[in-house]
């Protein structure tokens, strides 16, 4: 009903005029919301969580020794006793696979950490010093990048031998270049951006500028970088071990297991099958999660 008292001028208030109905949410809240709405990414996250749990408790779940031989039970198929069967020395494949996955994951994670740390420092140094230092450091990256990275990795493995430490060095030695380039690009762009300049003019302390502007940008770059690097490292580790250039028995990794499985492939395919499946599931989960993260974090892809 229209009544006269509804026709009294009441004007507006400042807050009302400036109110934006959409609640403001931070970059990370927004990213998390996008990620949560992506069922594939969430499924991958859950699978990864399960895998991590299995990698921790899996080897002890069945109570079998994964190194000691048990010849009478050799080459068995999957059964209630041995869920994934046994290998040619009668060792429980289920336990061995989780030990191997533990090694593969650990190698990939540590190598990724190394890559991110070295890359960030190197990239920051390039952007910070600029000039001839930048040119020189960039040249070094270019030289490293003019070889397919697996070649460099193989050369390093030759020098350092087939052990865990060598593997970590060999994996991260080429991988940091990409991180360094991205970090350098990001810092250079921010340095020239007007809002950082404005913050400097307004007297914000360097620490505050770094925390407020550089770190958030850096984190999203590094997260995306890591999500590509981890599956890559798992691949490479498996590949090297398969070619006999990586870890060797008695060390166990998924690559070692696959290479052992190949030797008995014609008669006992399951010994090859299970480690392959676990490797593929890990890599796929990381890849899908990475895709989801990219959609959530990359401002360019936002709609």
């Amino acid at each position, binding site marked *: 009903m229209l009544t006269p008292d509804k026709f009294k001028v009441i004007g507006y208030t400042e807050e009302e005029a400036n109110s934006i109905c959409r609640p403001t949410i931070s970059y990370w809240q927004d990213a998390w919301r996008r990620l949560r709405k992506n069922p594939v990414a969430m499924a991958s996250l859950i699978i990864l969580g399960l895998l991590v749990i299995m990698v921790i408790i899996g080897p002890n779940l069945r109570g079998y020794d994964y190194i000691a031989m048990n010849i009478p039970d050799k080459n068995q198929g999957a059964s209630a006793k041995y869920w994934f069967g046994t290998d040619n020395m009668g060792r429980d494949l289920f336990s061995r696979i989780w030990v191997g996955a533990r090694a593969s994951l650990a190698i990939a994670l540590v190598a990724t950490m190394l890559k991110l740390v070295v890359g960030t420092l190197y990239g920051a140094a390039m952007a910070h010093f600029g000039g001839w230092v930048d040119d020189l450091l960039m040249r070094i990256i*270019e030289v490293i990048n003019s070889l397919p990275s697996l070649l460099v990795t193989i*050369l390093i493995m030759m*020098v350092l031998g087939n052990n865990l430490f060598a593997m970590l060095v060999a994996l991260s030695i080429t991988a940091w270049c990409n991180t360094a380039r991205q970090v350098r690009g990001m810092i250079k762009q921010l340095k020239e951006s007007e809002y950082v300049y404005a913050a400097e003019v307004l007297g914000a302390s360097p620490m505050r500028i770094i925390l407020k502007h550089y770190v958030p940008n850096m984190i999203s770059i590094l997260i995306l970088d890591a999500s590509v690097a981890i599956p890559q490292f798992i691949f490479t580790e498996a590949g090297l071990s398969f*070619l006999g250039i990586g870890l060797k028995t008695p060390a166990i990794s998924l690559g070692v297991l696959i290479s052992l499985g190949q030797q008995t492939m014609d008669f006992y395919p399951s010994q090859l099958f299970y480690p392959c499946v676990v490797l*593929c599931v890990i890599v796929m989960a990381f890849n899908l999660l990475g895709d989801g993260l990219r959609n959530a974090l990359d401002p360019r892809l936002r709609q």
Partner: protein
Amino acid sequence: MGRYIVRRFLEMLLTLFLIATATFFLLEAVPGDPLSQRADKLPVQSREVMYKRYGLDKPVMERYLITMKNMAKGDFGESFVYAGQTVGGLIHDRLPVSARLGIQQMLLGVTVGLLLGILAAIKRGTIADYTVVAFSVLLISIPHLIFGLMLQKIFAGNLRWFPTIGWPSGDELWFGGWKYTVLPTLTGCFSYIATYARLLKTSMLDVVNQDYVLTAESKGLSRGRIIRKHILRNSFIPVMTQLPMSVAMCITGSFFIESIFAIPGIGQYYVTAVNNQDLSIVLGETVLLALLYIVVLFITDLLYVVVDPRISMPGRKK
């Protein structure tokens, strides 16, 4: 243009020189000396003869200079393990094998990948799109190695459609003997399919949202023409950045594929040389593979200028 090419050529030589030097000294650091396995059983005198024959009696710097000089002349060294085998000879025998494998898998993989990418972008949000996406995620998550073993087990081992190992030689080196090449080619091409399908789809969806596609639509052009003339060409620019990556994939992929199918190519030989600590072969092959890769990087830069008119020849004016 001419000046740019000359400058890039000199840069390539410098890079190659740096790589050769770095590789040489890296391999010097490999523990033990490359001849000890063969020479330890021999009497002292013949051992000395042997070390002399391979030049290992000289100090490091002198050997470095000799190696570099030989490389400049095109002599990439002789095997420490198998007497008389030289890198040059190996390249002559084995490069065609790897080249054919590489070309076959790239042709097949890139073509199919690009077609699937176009399909997924055009049919966005349909079953076809989801199938391509799921398919490529699956393929990207399976390493060459597992894929190769799987194909070998199923199609050669169980079904016996194709031979398990081997590669055509002699008259059939470049053409023919297809049954041997089917499984290795398939193994290699899958990662190209996955990479290129994803890449082209992303790139096309990016271009579709550009204003100039709206302009093209506002002209009332047919859908086919808009896709061909306005979307595809612009979508190919980011796809081209993948070319060097693809060649790298081809080189490193050959390590696995050639090992699995026992194909006598340079990849398999490289792995064998590494496992045998055959340092001279490793050095020679590394430098040659680097050369190949650098040339591809150079070609990619040139292709950019051809495809994207906005990029003027680098170095012309700045």
